[in-house]
C-alpha cells in the first residue's frame, strides 16, 4: 500500500521554481489542490477550468507538470499535445512516469492523472505528486460521500411517498407498507427504491 511521505524540506520553499498547471472544473476542488501544493512549498500553481483554454495555456505557461482529474474528458486533448511533439517545440511528455508503477497506480486510484514535462527529474516530480494524490484522495472521498448522502436522501423521499400511497390505498400501517415494498422487491429481484419509484411514477400517471 502506498503511503504519503512528505520530506520536511519541501515545506521550506525550495521547490517554488516548479511551474504547475492544474486543470480542474470544480472551484472548491481546485482551491483544495492549490492549498495543498502551496503548503508543500510550490507557489507557482496555475488553475484553468476549461478545455478550450488548455492548448493555449500549455503553450503560454510552459508548465513542468500538469495535474488533471482522471474523470476529465479533456485528458485526450493533453494526450494530443504530447503526441504531436514536433508541432509544439517542447510539450508534455508522459503520464507520470510509467516506469514507476506504484506511483502510477497510486495516482490512478486517487483519480488523478499527471503529465510531466520531458527531462524533469523523477525525484522532483514525486513530492508534488504525493501531495496532490493525498489531497485528491481526500477530496474525492468527500465528494463521493456527499453524492451518496444526497442519493440516500432522495431515495428516502421516494420510498416515503410510495409508503404514503400504499397506506392510503390499502389502509395499512407504515411498517406494513414498507414490508410490502420490500417483499415485492425481493420477489422480483429488484431494489426497494426501484419498486417505490415505479409505484410513484404509476401513481403520477394515473392522477
Amino acid at each position, binding site marked *: 500500500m502506498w503511503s504519503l511521505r512528505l520530506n520536511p524540506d519541501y515545506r521550506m520553499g525550495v521547490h517554488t521554481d516548479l511551474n504547475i498547471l492544474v486543470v480542474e472544473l470544480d472551484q472548491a476542488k481546485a482551491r483544495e489542490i492549490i492549498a495543498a501544493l502551496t503548503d508543500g512549498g510550490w507557489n507557482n500553481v496555475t488553475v484553468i477550468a476549461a478545455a478550450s483554454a488548455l492548448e493555449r495555456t500549455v503553450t503560454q505557461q510552459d508548465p513542468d507538470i500538469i495535474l488533471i482529474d482522471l*474523470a*476529465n474528458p479533456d485528458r*485526450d*486533448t493533453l*494526450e*494530443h499535445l504530447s503526441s504531436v511533439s514536433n508541432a509544439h517545440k517542447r510539450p508534455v511528455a508522459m503520464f507520470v512516469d510509467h516506469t514507476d508503477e506504484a506511483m502510477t497506480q497510486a495516482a490512478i486510484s486517487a483519480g488523478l492523472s499527471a503529465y510531466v514535462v520531458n527531462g524533469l527529474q523523477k525525484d522532483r516530480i514525486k513530492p508534488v505528486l504525493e501531495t496532490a494524490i493525498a489531497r485528491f484522495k481526500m477530496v474525492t472521498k468527500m465528494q463521493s460521500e456527499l453524492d451518496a448522502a444526497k442519493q440516500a436522501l432522495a431515495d428516502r423521499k421516494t420510498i416515503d411517498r410510495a409508503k404514503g400511497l400504499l397506506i392510503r390505498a390499502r389502509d395499512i400501517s407504515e411498517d406494513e407498507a414498507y414490508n410490502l415494498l420490500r417483499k415485492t422487491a425481493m420477489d422480483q429481484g429488484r431494489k426497494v427504491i426501484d419498486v417505490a419509484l415505479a409505484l410513484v411514477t404509476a401513481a403520477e400517471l394515473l392522477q
Partner: protein
Amino acid sequence: MRLTQVQCGYLPLVDCAPLIIAKELKFAAQEGLDLTLVKQPSWSALRDMLALGHIDFAHMLAPMPVAMSLGLGAMPSRIDALMVLSINGTVTGVSAELDQKMRACGWVNQFNTPRETSKALFAAAPQVLRIGVPFPFSMHRMLLETWLSQDPEFSPDRIKIVTIPPAKMAEAVKNGALDMFCVGEPWGTVAVQQSGATLVLPGASIWEFAPEKVLGARHNWAEQNPKQCHAMIRAIYKATNWLERPENTALAVEILARSQHLDLPDHAIDPALSRQIVTKSGEPPKQVDQFLSFHKSAANFPWRSQASWISDRLAKWHGLERDAARITARASFRSDIYREALSPLGVDMPKTSEKVEGTMAAPTMVASTLGEMILGPDRFFNGAVFDSGMSRAPKW
C-alpha cells in the same frame, strides 16, 4: 454454472453496442462470464485502466493497441486486439459557416463524393483548416489524412488536427473553435442538431471497410487467461450477429437507450443503427448502407493486414522504421486467438489472416474453411491498394 467476473471498459458511443448487447441479452452469461461494463471518461483514461490491469478488456479505437504496442503515447504497453467490434461508423462534418461557403463554390452535398468535397473544402476554407478528432491514435485521423492528402490543394500546413472529446465536438464547432470534425455517432448527429453543423462524408466513403473499434486486452493477461478471452470473443460474436439482423434494429435501439450504459436518447442512437443519417437540420435522412456494421463480411476477424495499414500511418507520423513497426503491429492483431475461440462453434474462417486491402469492388467469395465466406466491398476512395507483402498470393 458459476460465472467468471470480467470487466470491460468502454466509451459511451453507439458502436459499443456489441458489448451492451452481449451483456443485456445474456450472450456473455451463456459463455460463463459475469460481464461488468465500466464507463470511461476519455480514451486516455480507458487506456491507463487497461494497461494497469484495472479492467480486463476494453472497447478501443483500432489504432490504440498498435500504438501502445509500438510504445507510442503516454502509457506504452503490450496490448492485443482480440477481435474487431465494428467496421466504419465515423462521420465528418463542417461548421454552418464553412458549409455555406462550400455551397457558394458550387458544391452539392451528396454525402458520398470525397473528391468534390475536399475540393470545395480547400476552396472555401480559411488558410488553416482546424479539424477536431477524438484521439490522436484514431481511425478518424487516419481516414481524414488519407482523404485530404489526396487533394491537389493539400499541404500539411493547410490543416491543423486538434483533439476534442467527442461529447464536446458540437460545442467546439458552435463556438468557432473548429471548422470541421470527424467523430463517431451519436456525436455527428448531435452536432447537426445542436450546432447547425453539416455532415459531409461518412468514413465509409473514404475506406469502405475500415476497422473502427477493437476488443483490447493486455498481451500477458490474454496469454494467461485464454478461457476468458475465448468466452468474451464468442459472446461478442453472437451479439454482433444478433445486432446485424435488420429485424433486430428497433429492439437494439430500445435496449441501448434504456440501458444505463450509454445515457443517450433513442433519437441519438437510431441514425447510426438504422444507417439513416440526417446531414443537415431539417433535411430528410440519407441512407448509407455501409455506415456502420458489426458482423457481415467477417467484420469481427482481426486481419493482420489491417494492423499493418494502421502501423504504416503511425510509422510515418512518428518516424518509426516501417517494417519493424509492421511486425509488432501484426503480432498485436490476434487472429490466432480469434480462430481458437470460434472454430469450436463451426464459424467459417478465412484461409489466411492477411488480405490485400482495397481490391474488392463488390461482395466477393474468398477461400475459407467452410467455403462460404464473402468479403467486401473494401475499396479506398482513390482506388489505392494496400498490400503488406506478407500475404501469400490470395486465390480469389
